[in-house]
C-alpha cells in the first residue's frame, strides 16, 4: 500500500489513551455510566475519527496497491461485465445421480446422527446434521441429560476443522509419500524386535476414550516396557488431570462462589454446558435468583456476570481461599499472612457471612488453573458448609473423564530426560504438538532430535509433524469410531459421519497395530469395549446407544465426600509489586489446536473483543505504571525467556498482573493460523504452568491489534437526536441521556418497582400508530425473538453457530481492523462503573427485524423488504450495494461484502456449506434473517400437514447453540408460545424503542441479586451500582 493510501485508511482499533483521561471522564459523569471500550471512555481524537465513519476508509482502502490507471482499467472491465451479465445465460450444469442410492436417503432433507465431540474436559454429546452424508451443522444432543442440546464455540467450530483445506493428506516418511501399511509394518517389526517394548515411547494428547485406554493396556501387557506419556498444555497439571472430578449441581445453589473458576465462558471448564444451564435457570425469574461471587485473576465473563467480583492476582487466590476457609469455620487452616486491603477484607467477611447463611445451599468452585491447594480448600469449605451431596457430588469410586492419567513418574519431563539420555528408539506422537507447546524449559525440539525414530499422528503437518520422520494424517472425530465420557460420566459412542476425507487414521489404529490382531478396526474395538456393559441383546443395545447417542446407565455413581485429607501447604502470594504473568488457554482457539479455524480466529474474544490475535492483557493502572499505551509492543520475560507481545487493557484486570493466552504464534498451523499473535509457550515453564513472576519492558513499534469493540458505533448530528458535541457515539448518548439500551434493576429495586424496564423518561414504548406508513396486520405468524439479559453469559456459542448455519465468510485480520467483519450476530459488552472494578452486561445484537424498519425505507432498489410475517428480508440479487440501509440502521447490524470474502474455490469448503443458504458474493449487504431457511422448512412441513407451525418447531441457530437458553424464538401472535409470554413479561423491553422502529426482538431486563452488605464498597473500586 502506498503511503498516501495508508493515510486514507482509518483503522478502528485501540487508540492511544491514558488512564488519567479515563478517570477524568468517569469522574465527570453522573448516574449510570456505560461504556464499550476504554477508548470511548477517554474520548480520544482517534476514537472520534473512527466513529465519524461508520465504515472507515471504505472508498479508499483496497487490499493492494492499485494505481489510478489500474483502477480505471479494472472499473472498465467490471462495467463491461456488468453490462453483459444481464444477458448471459447460465452454463450447463451437470447432474450426477447415484449409481445405487442409499435406501433411507431423501436428497434435500437433512439426516441427523448422534455422536460426541471428545474434548479434553469431557465429551460434548452431539447431534450432527448431514446433507447427503456430509456433516453441515453440529449441535448438542437435545435428549442427552448432560448438555440437553447446547454446545459451545469449540464444538460448533469443529465443523470447519473437519473441512480445513490444510489438513495433511498423505502418510509421509521424510517428506515422501508412503502408505499406512508400510508404516504399520515397520512399526510392528521394530516393536517386535525389542522383545519387551523397551525404547518404545508414546506421547499422546490426553486419552479420553475408554477403548483407547483398553487398547493401551493391551499394548502394555504385550510390551511391558513401552511407555505412554500424556500431555495437554491446557490440562496437564490441573486438578482435572489429577483425577478429581467433582460434579457440581447449581440447580440448588443459592450462592455460588468462583475461586478463579471460569465456568461460564466456555467448554474449557469441565461441565460448562451443565453449569451454565443450571446457573441460567436460576436467573430466569426474579422469584428465584442465585447470587454469584467471583474471585478471579483475569477478567472473564464469569466474573463480569457476577453480582460481586473481586480481582486478585493469581498468586493471591490460594491465600484468599485459605482465609475464606478460616472465615467459614474450617479448623487447622494455615493461611499465609498477607496484607489484604480493606476492600478485600470486607469482601471476605461479607462472603463468608453469606456462605454461612446459605450453608447447604451454596457452592464454592475452584479454578482449573490454580494451585492444587485451592481445589483442596474448596472441598473443605464445601464440606464444612454441608454442601457435599447437595450442591456438589463426588464420583464413587473416583472414576474420571480421562481413563488413564499420567502418573507423575511418566510425565513429559521424564520423557525429555529419556530422550536426552538416548533411551528412545521410537517416539510415537499421537495428536500432540509438543514441539510447539511443551514447556519452554524442557527444550523439547532439541530433545526430539535425539530419538532414533519419530512418528507423528496429527491432523496437520504442524510444528511437531515438521520434525518427525513419519507423519500419518489423523482422522477427525467426525470421521472415526471411538468413545468418550461426558462430564457426568455418561459414555457416548463417537460414530463417523463421513469417510475420512484424506484416509486419516486414529490412535486406535496405531495401538491395534502392535497387538496380536492388528486388523481389528476401531469399530470392532469400540464394540468390544462395551459388549460387557450393554445388557440384553447386544445388537439391539448397541443400535440404541448409537441412535440416542449414549449408553444407558454409565453416568458416574455419586457419593458425598467426607474424607478430608491433609490441607497441605498454601503458597504465599508473590510480593505486591512483582509482576505476575498468567497463562490461560485461549478462549477461542484453546491451546492452539484450532489455530487454523477461521471462525474461531475471527470471533471477538469475550471481554477484550480482540480478534485474530493474542495480547498481554493488563489493567489500566499497570498500563500507566509502565508508561505504555494500548497496542504498544512489550517484551515479556520469565526466567530469562523472552517474547514480544502487544498490550491491551481489560477493565477489571488486577494490577501488577498480565494475562497471556496460549495457542498463538504458530509457525505451521496452516493458511489461517500461521503467524497470528505471539507464542506464549516460549515463556511458560514446567514448574510454573499457570502463573509465573516475570518482567515487562517496552520495545519499539506498534502491533496493530484488531479489536471489534469500537465497531458499530452510531454517529449522528444534533439534528437527528445526537449530542452534536463530539461526544456522540451511541453509547455516549445512551450514557448521558439514558436511552436505556441496558436496563436492569437490583432485586430490591425490582420488588419496589416491577415495571422498571418500561417506565421513566428514557424507557419509552413504541407507538404503533405513530407512523407515516400504513400498518400491516400480521394475521397468522409473526416471528419474534426474546433474549434474556439475565441468562446470557457472553460465551459466543451463538456466533459460531450462526457462522456454520448461515455460511458466513471469514474476512481476515486486516479487514477486521477496518471494521468489515461479517458476523451477523455480535455480543455487545457494556461495561459499567469503575475501570478497575466494572460490571458488564452482555447483549447479543443481531437484526431486530423492526416492524417499522428504517433500512427498508431507504433502499433504492427494494432489496430489503418486509415479509407478510414480519421478517425483514434481504434479497441479495437485488442489492446493488448502496449501503444506505446500513447507514440508516440504528442497531448497526448490517454487514457489507466489501470484497469477495466467501471462498468459492476451495473444494473441501464447498462440502461444508449449508445448501439452504446463499453463499453471498461481493457487493451485497447481508444480515441476520432469523434463520429464514428454517422457518420456510417448518412452514412447508406444517402446510403439508394442514396445521399451524407449532411453538418450538422453528429454532434459530443461535437459540439452538445457547447453553444458557437465553434466546427464545417463535410466533408472537400465538399467545401460548414461549416467546409471546416472554415478550409480554413486564421486564421485556425494546432497544431504542424511542425511535419507533418497533423491533421484533425484545430483551428481558436483568434483575441482579447483590449482597446488601457489599453495596457500598470503597470509592475507587465502586461499581456505579450494586
Amino acid at each position: 500500500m502506498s503511503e498516501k493510501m495508508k493515510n486514507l485508511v482509518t483503522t478502528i482499533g485501540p487508540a492511544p489513551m491514558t488512564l488519567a483521561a479515563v478517570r477524568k471522564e468517569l469522574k465527570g459523569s453522573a448516574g449510570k455510566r456505560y461504556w464499550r471500550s476504554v477508548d470511548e471512555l477517554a474520548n480520544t481524537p482517534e476514537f472520534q475519527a473512527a466513529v465519524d465513519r461508520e465504515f472507515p476508509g471504505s472508498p479508499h482502502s483496497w487490499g493492494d496497491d492499485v494505481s489510478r490507471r489500474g483502477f480505471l482499467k479494472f472499473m472498465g472491465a467490471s462495467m463491461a461485465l456488468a453490462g453483459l451479465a444481464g444477458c448471459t445465460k447460465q452454463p450447463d450444469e451437470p447432474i450426477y445421480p447415484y449409481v445405487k442410492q442409499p435406501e433411507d436417503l431423501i436428497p434435500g432433507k437433512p439426516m441427523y446422527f448422534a455422536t460426541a465431540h471428545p474434548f479434553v474436559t469431557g465429551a460434548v454429546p452431539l447431534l450432527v446434521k448431514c446433507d447427503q452424508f456430509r456433516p453441515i451443522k453440529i449441535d448438542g444432543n437435545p435428549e442427552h441429560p448432560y448438555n440437553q442440546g447446547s454446545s459451545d464455540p469449540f464444538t460448533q467450530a469443529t465443523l470447519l476443522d473437519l473441512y480445513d483445506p490444510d489438513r495433511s493428506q498423505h502418510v509421509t516418511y521424510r517428506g515422501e509419500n508412503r502408505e499406512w501399511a508400510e508404516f504399520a509394518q515397520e512399526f510392528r517389526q521394530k516393536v517386535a524386535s525389542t522383545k519387551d517394548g523397551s525404547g518404545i515411547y508414546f506421547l499422546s494428547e490426553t486419552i479420553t476414550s475408554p477403548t483407547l485406554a483398553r487398547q493401551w493396556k493391551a499394548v502394555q501387557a504385550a510390551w511391558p516396557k513401552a511407555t505412554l506419556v500424556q500431555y495437554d498444555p491446557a490440562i496437564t497439571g490441573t486438578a482435572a488431570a489429577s483425577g478429581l472430578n467433582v460434579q457440581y449441581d447449581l440447580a440448588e445453589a443459592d450462592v455460588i462462589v468462583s475461586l478463579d473458576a471460569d465456568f461460564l465462558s466456555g467448554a474449557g471448564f469441565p461441565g460448562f454446558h451443565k453449569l451454565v444451564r443450571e446457573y441460567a435457570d436460576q436467573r430466569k425469574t426474579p422469584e428465584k435468583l442465585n447470587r454469584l461471587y467471583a474471585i478471579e485473576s483475569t477478567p472473564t465473563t464469569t466474573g463480569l456476570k457476577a453480582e460481586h467480583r473481586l480481582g486478585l492476582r493469581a498468586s493471591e487466590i490460594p491465600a484468599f481461599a485459605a482465609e475464606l476457609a478460616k472465615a467459614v469455620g474450617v479448623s487447622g487452616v494455615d493461611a499465609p499472612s498477607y496484607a489484604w486491603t480493606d476492600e478485600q477484607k470486607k469482601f471476605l467477611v461479607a462472603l463468608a457471612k453469606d456462605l454461612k447463611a446459605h450453608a447447604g445451599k451454596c457452592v464454592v468452585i475452584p479454578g482449573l488453573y490454580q494451585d492444587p491447594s485451592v481445589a483442596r480448600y474448596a472441598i473443605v469449605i464445601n464440606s464444612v458448609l454441608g454442601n457435599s451431596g447437595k450442591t456438589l457430588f463426588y464420583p464413587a469410586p473416583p472414576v474420571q473423564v480421562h481413563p488413564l492419567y499420567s502418573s507423575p513418574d511418566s510425565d513429559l519431563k521424564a520423557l525429555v530426560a529419556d530422550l536426552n539420555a538416548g533411551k528412545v528408539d521410537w517416539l510415537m506422537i499421537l495428536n500432540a504438538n509438543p514441539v510447539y507447546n511443551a514447556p519452554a524449559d524442557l527444550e523439547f525440539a532439541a530433545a526430539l532430535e535425539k530419538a532414533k525414530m519419530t512418528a507423528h499422528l496429527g491432523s496437520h503437518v504442524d510444528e511437531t509433524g515438521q520434525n518427525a520422520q513419519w507423519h500419518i494424517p489423523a482422522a477427525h472425530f467426525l470421521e472415526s469410531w471411538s468413545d468418550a465420557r461426558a462430564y457426568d460420566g455418561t459414555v457416548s459412542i463417537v460414530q463417523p459421519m463421513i469417510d475420512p476425507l484424506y484416509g486419516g487414521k486414529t490412535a486406535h489404529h496405531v495401538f491395534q497395530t502392535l497387538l496380536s490382531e492388528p486388523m481389528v478396526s476401531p469399530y470392532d474395538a469400540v464394540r468390544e469395549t462395551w459388549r460387557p456393559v450393554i445388557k440384553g441383546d447386544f445388537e439391539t443395545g448397541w443400535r440404541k446407544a448409537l441412535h440416542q447417542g449414549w449408553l444407558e446407565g454409565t453416568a458416574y455413581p455419586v457419593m458425598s465426600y467426607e474424607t478430608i485429607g491433609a490441607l497441605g501447604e498454601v503458597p504465599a502470594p508473590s510480593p505486591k509489586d512483582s509482576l505476575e504473568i498468567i497463562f490461560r488457554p485461549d478462549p477461542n482457539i484453546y491451546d492452539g489446536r484450532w489455530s487454523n479455524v477461521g471462525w474461531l480466529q475471527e470471533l471477538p474474544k469475550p471481554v477484550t473483543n480482540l480478534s485474530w490475535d493474542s495480547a498481554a492483557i493488563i489493567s489500566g493502572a499497570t498500563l500507566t505504571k509502565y508508561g505504555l499505551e494500548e497496542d504498544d509492543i512489550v517484551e515479556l520475560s520469565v526466567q530469562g525467556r523472552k517474547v514480544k507481545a502487544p498490550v491491551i487493557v481489560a477493565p477489571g484486570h488486577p494490577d501488577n498482573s498480565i494475562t497471556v493466552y496460549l495457542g498463538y504464534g504458530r509457525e505451521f498451523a496452516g493458511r489461517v493460523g500461521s503467524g497470528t499473535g505471539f507464542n506464549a509457550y516460549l515463556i511458560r515453564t514446567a514448574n510454573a504452568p499457570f502463573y509465573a513472576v516475570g518482567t515487562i519492558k517496552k520495545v519499539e513499534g506498534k502491533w496493530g491489534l484488531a479489536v471489534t469493540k469500537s465497531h458499530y458505533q452510531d454517529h449522528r448530528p444534533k439534528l437527528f437526536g445526537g449530542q452534536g458535541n463530539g461526544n456522540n457515539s451511541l453509547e455516549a448518548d445512551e450514557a448521558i441521556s439514558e436511552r436505556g439500551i441496558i436496563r436492569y434493576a437490583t432485586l430490591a429495586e425490582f420488588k419496589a418497582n416491577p415495571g422498571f424496564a418500561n417506565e421513566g423518561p428514557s424507557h419509552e414504548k413504541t407507538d404503533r400508530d405513530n407512523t407515516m406508513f400504513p400498518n400491516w396486520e400480521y394475521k397468522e405468524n409473526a416471528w419474534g425473538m426474546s433474549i434474556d439479559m439475565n441468562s446470557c453469559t457472553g460465551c459466543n456459542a451463538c456466533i459460531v453457530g450462526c457462522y456454520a448455519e448461515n455460511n458466513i465468510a471469514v474476512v481476515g485480520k486486516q479487514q477486521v481492523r477496518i471494521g468489515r467483519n461479517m458476523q451477523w450476530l455480535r455480543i455487545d459488552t457494556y461495561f459499567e462503573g469503575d475501570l478497575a472494578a466494572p460490571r458488564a452486561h452482555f447483549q447479543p445484537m443481531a437484526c431486530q427485524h423492526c416492524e417499522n424498519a428504517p433500512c427498508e425505507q431507504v433502499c433504492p432498489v427494494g432489496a430489503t423488504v418486509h415479509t407478510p410475517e414480519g421478517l425483514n428480508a434481504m434479497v441479495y440479487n437485488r442489492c446493488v450495494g448502496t449501503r444506505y440501509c446500513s447507514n440508516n440502521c440504528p442497531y448497526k447490524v448490517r454487514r457489507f461484502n466489501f470484497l469477495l470474502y466467501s471462498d468459492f474455490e476451495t473444494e473441501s469448503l464447498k462440502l461444508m456449506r449449508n445448501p439452504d443458504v446463499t453463499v453471498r458474493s461481493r457487493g451485497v449487504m447481508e444480515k441476520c434473517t432469523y434463520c429464514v431457511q428454517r422457518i420456510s422448512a417448518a412452514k412447508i412441513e406444517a402446510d403439508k400437514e394442514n396445521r399451524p407451525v407449532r411453538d418450538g418447531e422453528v429454532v434459530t441457530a443461535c437459540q439452538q447453540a445457547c447453553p444458557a437458553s437465553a434466546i427464545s424464538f417463535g410466533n408472537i401472535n400465538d399467545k401460548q408460545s414461549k416467546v409471546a409470554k416472554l415478550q409480554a413479561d413486564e421486564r421485556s423491553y425494546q432497544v431504542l424503542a424511542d425511535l419507533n422502529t418497533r423491533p421484533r426482538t425484545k430483551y428481558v431486563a436483568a434483575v441482579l441479586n447483590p449482597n446488601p452488605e457489599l453495596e457500598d464498597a470503597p470509592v475507587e473500586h465502586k461499581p456505579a451500582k450494586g
Partner: protein
Amino acid sequence: MAQIFDRSSNALARASLVLTGLIVIALGVTLDQLQRSPWVTRQGQRPDQPVPFSHKHHVQGLGVQCQYCHVTVEKSSYAGIPPTKTCMNCHAQIWTNAQLLEPVRQSWATGQSLAWIKVHDLPDYVYFSHEIHVNKGIGCASCHGRVDQMPLMYAENTLQMEWCLDCHRNSAKNLRPTSEIYNMAWEKPSSDKPVWCAVGDEKSGVPTAETVNCVTKEPAENGNEMSPLLGQIGIAPSKYMKFTSQDELGRFLVVHYKIRTPNELASCEVCHR
C-alpha cells in the same frame, strides 16, 4: 460567408433525432426480448444427454408413473434423479445389448454416475420446493409441460421469475385436484368436461388431500365409478359441487387446500434466502 448547412439540413436533423430515439427504443426492445428469448432461457432446447432418454416412450408408451423414477417429489425439495440402479431394474432384462444404453451399463459396471445435463435449471439463489407444489395441487405438467409427449426432454417454460410470479400471484389458475397431479393429460374443467368436488370433515392436522375429493364423473347416488377415496372420506354424493371452469375450481381449491394468499406467496423470502 456561405451557410454551412443548407435549409434541407433541418429535415435531416429532425429525422436523425427521431431515428436516434427509434434506435434507442429498438435496442431496448431487442435486449428485453433477448433476455426472454430461448437463447437465454433455453426454453425448448434439448441438450445432448449421455443417453437420449425418451420420456414419451417411458411415460406414454410404457405407462411408467412419474414417481417410479422421481421418488422424492412429494417428500423433498428435489424431485430426484433416478440412480443407475433404477434404469438397470428393467434394462438388465430388456435391451441388454442396445448401443444407446452403453453409458448406463458403463455406469453400472464402473460405479461412475451418469452425467446428465440439467434441463430445468433454476439459478442457485432460488430455493424451489417440489414437495409443497405437488402437495398443494400443482401438477407436473403445469410447469414441465406434456413430458409424456417429449421424445427428448426440454423446458416447456422459461422458469424466469416473471413466470413464477405469474402463478404465485394467482395460483387459482393452475390448481388441480391432488389426485390428478401426475395426470399428464389433465384438462382444465369446462362445460363439456366438468369436475365434481366435495369437502369432508376439515380438521387441522389432517392433510387437505384427505378431506377434499374431486372426481371427473358425476357422482351418482348409487356411486358408480367413484374415487376409491370417496368411500374413506364418506362424503355423500349429494354434497359434490360441479365445476365447469378452471376459475371456479381454482377458487374452490384455494380455499380448501389452504393456499396462502398471493401476498404471502409473492413475498421475496418464499424463494430467496
